[in-house]
């Protein structure tokens, strides 16, 4: 083998190949104690609401006592899932008819969140509100104000439906991120891809506009709001930084059916540290699905809902624990699977079935909310964090629709409430 070949081989196996470590928390610790008996309700029984019902069924101690939706066919669909639940066409009727309900999960269209949240809190219920909290900053402020009042006067628990902060694998990876394993943060990337038109059929023409609120430019926050909000919150949680500006654009490329809400967007959010987040999302492709990457001088971390990996640079210091880590091949790179308590998990055979979370991240966010109620502890995602993420979504969508660079200022981050931050 010639020296030249040796050099090529060396380059192929060193400079071009990063060591990847899958970051998985101790799965044996994820089994939660059963809740004290608790009765909850769901408002908004569309596809996401039905997904919530599926996760609720896996939480011991929980009863879905009521569901509500203005759309009769969706209400019927939800009723098939939870036949034991009473059915209502509004939050008002639900509160009147099911006083035993202790908490309300709000999964209506985004622009309807505020009214439902305010009414549920006024009725003395704990509230979990899907994110983004609202389609305007004003409505999001209204939700924060209502939550602050309910917390102070009645000890109500209010959570924002952002799943990252309750996601055990994201939490585990964040420990590495914040322990200097990444070293200097250089750049960030977020991808959200799913092949779906966002158009909902409606045999009843009077329901068509309501069902297709995501395609209504007056009501929809588009991809930056509906999906980006979650990625923006993850970046905020990891870095403690809020963006200075957002710029970018969006186009209708995948589904030119007369819509004006972009089905493909790309954005750049710039942060005080100098790093930038590149956000790409499309409704026309499912390739790469959804993930965030934090690129650092020593390592990069990739988060993908139920999984997380750390890719180490060849010149990064080696930690002692890496010697004991399990290795696997990921494309060209030999990765190290990092799992807390790996020996025990291996003895239980749990390493054979993948290295990700067993449940959807939504499950952990909901479980965290109910634990917050039962144990009186703070929830992972406060409504104030939901507000900040919503602000980022609102302004990011504004950048897409105007084509302008939008600056975030102190007034944007001021939610108006004076309690919990």
């Amino acid at each position, binding site marked *: 083998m010639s020296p030249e070949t040796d050099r090529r081989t060396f380059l192929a196996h060193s400079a071009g190949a990063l060591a990847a470590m899958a970051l998985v928390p101790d799965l044996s610790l994820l089994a939660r104690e059963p809740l004290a008996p608790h009765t909850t309700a769901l408002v908004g029984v569309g*596809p996401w609401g*039905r*997904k919530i*019902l*599926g996760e609720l*069924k*896996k939480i011991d101690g929980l009863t879905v006592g009521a569901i509500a939706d203005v759309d009769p*066919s969706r209400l019927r669909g939800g*009723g*098939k*899932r*939870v*036949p*034991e639940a009473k059915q209502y066409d509004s939050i008002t009727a639900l509160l009147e008819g099911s006083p035993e309900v202790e908490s309300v999960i709000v999964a209506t269209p985004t622009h309807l969140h505020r009214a439902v949240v305010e009414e549920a809190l006024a009725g003395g219920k704990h509230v979990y509100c899907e994110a983004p909290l609202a389609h305007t900053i004003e409505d999001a402020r209204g939700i924060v104000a209502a939550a602050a009042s309910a917390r102070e006067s009645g000890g109500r628990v209010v959570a924002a439906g952002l799943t990252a902060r309750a996601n055990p694998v994201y939490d585990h990876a964040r420990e590495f991120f914040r322990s200097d394993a990444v070293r200097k943060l250089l750049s960030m990337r977020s991808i959200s891809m799913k092949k*779906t*038109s966002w*158009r*909902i*059929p409606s*045999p009843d023409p009077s329901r068509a506009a309501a069902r297709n609120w995501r395609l209504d430019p007056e009501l929809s926050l588009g991809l930056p709001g509906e999906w980006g909000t979650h990625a923006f919150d993850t970046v905020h949680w990891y870095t403690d930084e809020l963006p200075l500006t957002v710029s970018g654009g969006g186009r209708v490329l995948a*589904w030119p*059916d007369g819509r004006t809400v972009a089905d493909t967007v790309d954005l750049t959010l710039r942060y005080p540290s100098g790093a930038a987040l590149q956000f790409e999302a499309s409704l026309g492709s499912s390739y790469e699905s959804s993930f965030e990457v934090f690129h650092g001088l020593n390592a990069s971390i990739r988060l993908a809902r139920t999984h997380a990996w750390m890719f180490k640079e060849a010149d990064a210091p080696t930690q002692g624990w890496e010697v004991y880590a399990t290795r696997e091949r990921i494309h060209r790179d030999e990765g190290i699977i990092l799992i807390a308590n790996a020996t025990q998990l291996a003895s*239980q*055979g*749990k390493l*054979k*079935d*993948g290295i990700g*979370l*067993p*449940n*959807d991240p939504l*499950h952990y966010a909901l479980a965290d909310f109910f634990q917050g109620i039962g144990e009186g502890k703070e929830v992972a995602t406060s409504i104030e964090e939901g507000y900040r993420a919503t602000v980022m979504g609102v302004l990011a969508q504004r950048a897409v629709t105007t084509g302008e660079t939008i600056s975030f200022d102190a007034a944007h981050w001021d939610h108006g409430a004076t309690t919990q931050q």
Partner: protein
Amino acid sequence: MTHLPGFERLAIHAMGTRFEAALSGASPADLRSAGEVAFQEILELHARWSAFDPGSLLTRVNRLAAGRAVPIDGETFEVLALARSLWEATDGTFDPTTGAAMRTHGFRPSRPDTDPGASARASADAPLPGMGAVELDPGAGTVRFLDPRVELDLGALAKGVALDRAGESLRESGVPCALIHGGTSGVLAIGTPPDSDGWPIALDREGRIPSVRLRDAALGVSAGHGRGAAIGGGGHVLDPRTGRPGSVDRFAAVVGDSAAVADAWATAWVVRALPSRTPESLSVLAGLTDGETPTEVTHRSDPRGAFSPPPR
């Protein structure tokens, strides 16, 4: 599915197979959105009923129900009740308590996240526990296993239920003409294709076996040989009476209103012929896959799913 000009086509991967739909009779945008909603139904069922997903409700049931009653959602309760009624109607020949035995015979990968004892307790050559060992409490909305060997595998039923549910969704969305299949082992037809009296479905690539034309009907196909084979695409089928694999050469095709019911009866007919037990509402074609042995046909007069002799 061959190329169908003028049809809106969609496909997804779920339940270990590929579901595909061809839709017609409305604008492309409306057909697309109707198809997406229908496929969303399938994905939601997959999330709950997958025997391979450690986070699914079915996995949770299999892990816990031998020890206590486990709450399940209304639709899961309904499908287990349907499974029980089909188990009774087929004299136990269709039996979804086969999960552990399927792994014991190597037809399913090991799954250590479920109760590891179930596999250990399942003998390779013993009758399956049967749905009689699955207690459903409609009042409490729970399921409990009365035999620790029970491990549910809805593979032979869930795809059919998914097709039925997708069909309901498409009809609710006003789609007048559609064909959906799940891995070719189950097919659901809505209406007829333009200028035709039915959707022509070939049961094998070689044309040795009669074909079928479907109109507002469902077809379930099962075969004793492995996945991805020429006929059907269904997995290996165990004989519940022995807990051992049934004949590898046998196939069955069943036409009826429900893809779930057709799929289950096709599975049962692969294990053994059940002419006296088969409801009048079903048309059955069963036999050996060699194409030479005469096939058994039951109730073939149904115009919604008439079997046609193969061309000679």
